[in-house]
C-alpha cells in the first residue's frame, strides 16, 4: 500500500517542504535560491554520474552541455516573450510563457543532447584520458562559440529571462522556476534510475567493466554510448535552461567554464560513482557547503579542491561507493517500488520463483 503510492507521496512531501513555504513567503529569497541551486545541482550530478560513474568514463566538460541548454532555452523564451536588442521585440504576450517554458526547456535539452554527439562519436574509438580531453575541448568549443556569437551578446552575456519569469508570475504568483527545477530533478532521478536498472541500460555498466566482453556478448556498445551521452548531456541542458531562468535572469559564457564542470565532478565523486542517492546527497551537501564557505570568498576555491584531494586520499569511493541508500538500509525498500525484477531473494521473493519449463 505504502509502496504503491510512495512516488506520489514523495512528490507531495517535496511540495510541502519546498514549494508551498516558498510560495507562502515562509522561505525568504535566500533560502529559495539555495533550494533552486540544490535542484540544479541534483540534475547536474545525477546526469554526470551516468557517464563518470556508471559508464566509468571521465567526462570533464559537463558545463558545456549546460551552456547549450541555457542559451537555447533562453533564446527561445526571450525571442517569444521578452524581446532583445538584437533579436527584435517580443512576439507573444508574456503570459503564454507559462505553457511554453517547459517546451523551451525540453528544446534546450534536445539541443544539448545533440551537442552530446560531439563526445559520443569520438567515444567509439577513444576512451579514458583521450576522451577526457575531448570532453574538455567540447566544453571550450561551446564556450568559445558562444563568445563569438555577437547576436546573443557574445562574451557580455544574454539577458531578458527575468521578464519571462515575471510573465509567468503574472498568471499565477507561484515560484514557477523553482517548481520546474524540482520536477526536473525528480524526472532526472527517475529516468536515470530506470535506465540503469533495465537490462538495456545495464549494458552501460558492462562497458565500464569490460567493453570488449560487452561487445562480444551482443551489447551494441556504440548505441549504448550514444544513448548514455545524449541522455546525460540532454539532462545537463535542461539544468542549464532552468539555471538561466533563475534570479537575475542573466547568463554569460564565463559561467560555463571548466570550473562549473569541476563542481559537477566533485559532486559525483563525493557521492560515489554509480550511486544515485550518493549524487543526490552530495549535491545537497555541496550546495550548502558552498554557501557556508561564502565568507571565505576566494579561499572557498582553496577549501573545495583540498576537500576533494583529501577525499581521494582517504575515502576515494566517496560517501556511498556504488551502493544506494536502499542497499545500506534495506528497510527503505519498503518505501520504493522495485526498479529491478531481479533483486536478491529476501527483498522480492515473489519474482524469484519461476516454474521450470516442462519437457
Amino acid at each position, binding site marked *: 500500500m505504502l509502496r504503491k503510492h510512495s512516488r506520489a507521496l514523495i512528490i507531495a512531501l517535496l511540495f510541502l517542504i519546498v514549494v508551498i513555504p516558498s510560495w507562502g513567503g515562509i522561505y525568504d529569497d535566500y533560502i529559495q535560491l539555495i533550494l533552486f541551486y540544490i535542484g540544479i545541482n541534483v540534475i547536474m550530478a545525477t546526469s554526470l554520474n551516468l557517464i563518470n560513474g556508471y559508464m566509468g568514463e571521465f567526462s570533464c566538460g559537463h558545463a558545456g552541455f549546460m551552456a547549450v541548454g541555457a542559451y537555447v532555452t533562453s533564446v527561445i523564451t526571450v525571442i517569444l516573450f521578452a524581446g532583445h536588442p538584437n533579436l527584435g521585440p517580443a512576439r507573444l504576450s508574456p503570459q503564454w510563457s507559462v505553457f511554453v517554458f517547459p517546451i523551451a526547456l525540453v528544446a534546450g535539452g534536445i539541443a544539448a543532447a545533440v551537442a552530446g554527439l560531439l563526445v559520443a562519436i569520438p567515444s567509439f574509438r577513444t576512451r579514458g584520458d583521450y576522451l577526457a580531453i575531448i570532453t574538455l575541448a567540447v566544453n*571550450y568549443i561551446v564556450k568559445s562559440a558562444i563568445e563569438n556569437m555577437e547576436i546573443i551578446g557574445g562574451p557580455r552575456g544574454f539577458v531578458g529571462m527575468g521578464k519571462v519569469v515575471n510573465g509567468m508570475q503574472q498568471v499565477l504568483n507561484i515560484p514557477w522556476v523553482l517548481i520546474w527545477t524540482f520536477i526536473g530533478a525528480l524526472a532526472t532521478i527517475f529516468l536515470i534510475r530506470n535506465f540503469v536498472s533495465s537490462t538495456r541500460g545495464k549494458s552501460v555498466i558492462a562497458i565500464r567493466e569490460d567493453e570488449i566482453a560487452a561487445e562480444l556478448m551482443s551489447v551494441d556498445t556504440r548505441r549504448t554510448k550514444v544513448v548514455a551521452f545524449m541522455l546525460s548531456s540532454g539532462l545537463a541542458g535542461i539544468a542549464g535552461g532552468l539555471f538561466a531562468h533563475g534570479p537575475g535572469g542573466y547568463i554569460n559564457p564565463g559561467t560555463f567554464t571548466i570550473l562549473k564542470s569541476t563542481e559537477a565532478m566533485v559532486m559525483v565523486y563525493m557521492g560515489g560513482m554509480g550511486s544515485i542517492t550518493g549524487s543526490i546527497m552530495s549535491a545537497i551537501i555541496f550546495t550548502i557547503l558552498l554557501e557556508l564557505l561564502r565568507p571565505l570568498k576566494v579561499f572557498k576555491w582553496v577549501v573545495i579542491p583540498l576537500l576533494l584531494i583529501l577525499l581521494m586520499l582517504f575515502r576515494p569511493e566517496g560517501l556511498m561507493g556504488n551502493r544506494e541508500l536502499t542497499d545500506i538500509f534495506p528497510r527503505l525498500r519498503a518505501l520504493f517500488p522495485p526498479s529491478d525484477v531481479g533483486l536478491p531473494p529476501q527483498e522480492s521473493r515473489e519474482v524469484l520463483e519461476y516454474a521450470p519449463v516442462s519437457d
Partner: protein
Amino acid sequence: MSIFLQHFVNALQWGSFYALIALGYTMVYGVLLLINFAHGDIFMVGAYLGFFIGTYLLTTFGSTMPSWLVLTLTLLLSMLLTAGVGVTIERVAYRPLRERGADRLYVVITALMVGLLLEYLNLGFLGARRRQYPTLLETQVYSIYGVNVSNLKIGIIGLSFLVMIGLELIVRKTKIGMAMRAISYDREAVPLMGVPVNRIIVATFIIGSSLAALAGNMFGAAYPILTYNMGILIGWKAFIAAVVGGIGEIRGAMAGGYLLGFIEIFVVAMGGLPGFGWLSSTYRDLVAFTILLIILTLRPTGLFGVARRQKV
C-alpha cells in the same frame, strides 16, 4: 613575403611556449600514465617565481650586478624552485595514491584539484592585482629584410631549441633518460629490473616543472602581464599539442607545440586577408580546440602515437 616571415617568427615563439609546456605533460604521462592537469598552473607558478626573484634582484642588486647575471639567476632560481613545487606535489598528492594502488582516475582528479588549488592560493594570497614582469633584458629590435625581430624573440626561440636538444640528449644518452623511456615502454618489467622507479618519477617532475618555469619566464618577458589564471588556457593548449603529437612521445610534444603555434598564428593572420575579416582573433581558441577534436576522432592516438592493441 615579409609579412609571412614575420608571422613565421611569431609562430616559432608561440610554438616554443607550447612545446616546452607540452614536454612536461608528455613526460609525466610517459612515466606515470597520468595527465598532470596541474601542469599549466606549474607554468604560472614558474612565471610568478620569476617575477618575484627578478624584481628582488633588480631592486636589491640592480646597480651592482650585470644584467646578464640577473637574468641567468632569475631563470635558474625560478626553475629550481618550481621544480621543488612540482616534486612536492608529486610527493604529497600523487605518490600516496599510487602507493595505495588507487585507480588512475583518482590521481587524475587529484591533479585537476591541485591545479585549482594553485590558482586560488595565488588569487587568495596575492590578490586579483595583475603583476608586471620585470624588464630583465633591454629590448632591441633588428630589422632583417623588413622583418622585425627583437633580441627577446631570438633568445626565446634559440634557448628553447637548445633546451630541447639538451632534453633529447638526456633522454637518449643518460641512464636516467633511458630508464624513463624504458618505463613508458614496459611498466611492469622495468621495476623488476632494479630500476628505482620513484627516483625516475622525481626526475621526470623536476625536468617537466623546470621546463614549464622556463616557459613561464619567457612568456613573462614577452607578455609581461601576469595573472593567477594565466596558466589555464596556455596549459590546455600545450596539452592539446602533446595529445596531437601523441602523448608520451617526446618528439611528438615538440612537433605538436610548433604545429599548434603555426596554426594559431595563421588563423589570426588570415583574419587580415580580404574576405576573411570575420575570422577575428577570438576564433583562435575555437580553431585550436576544434583541430584537437578532429585529430582525436580520426587518429585516436595522435599524430606520432602508436596504438597499443588490447589483447582479447
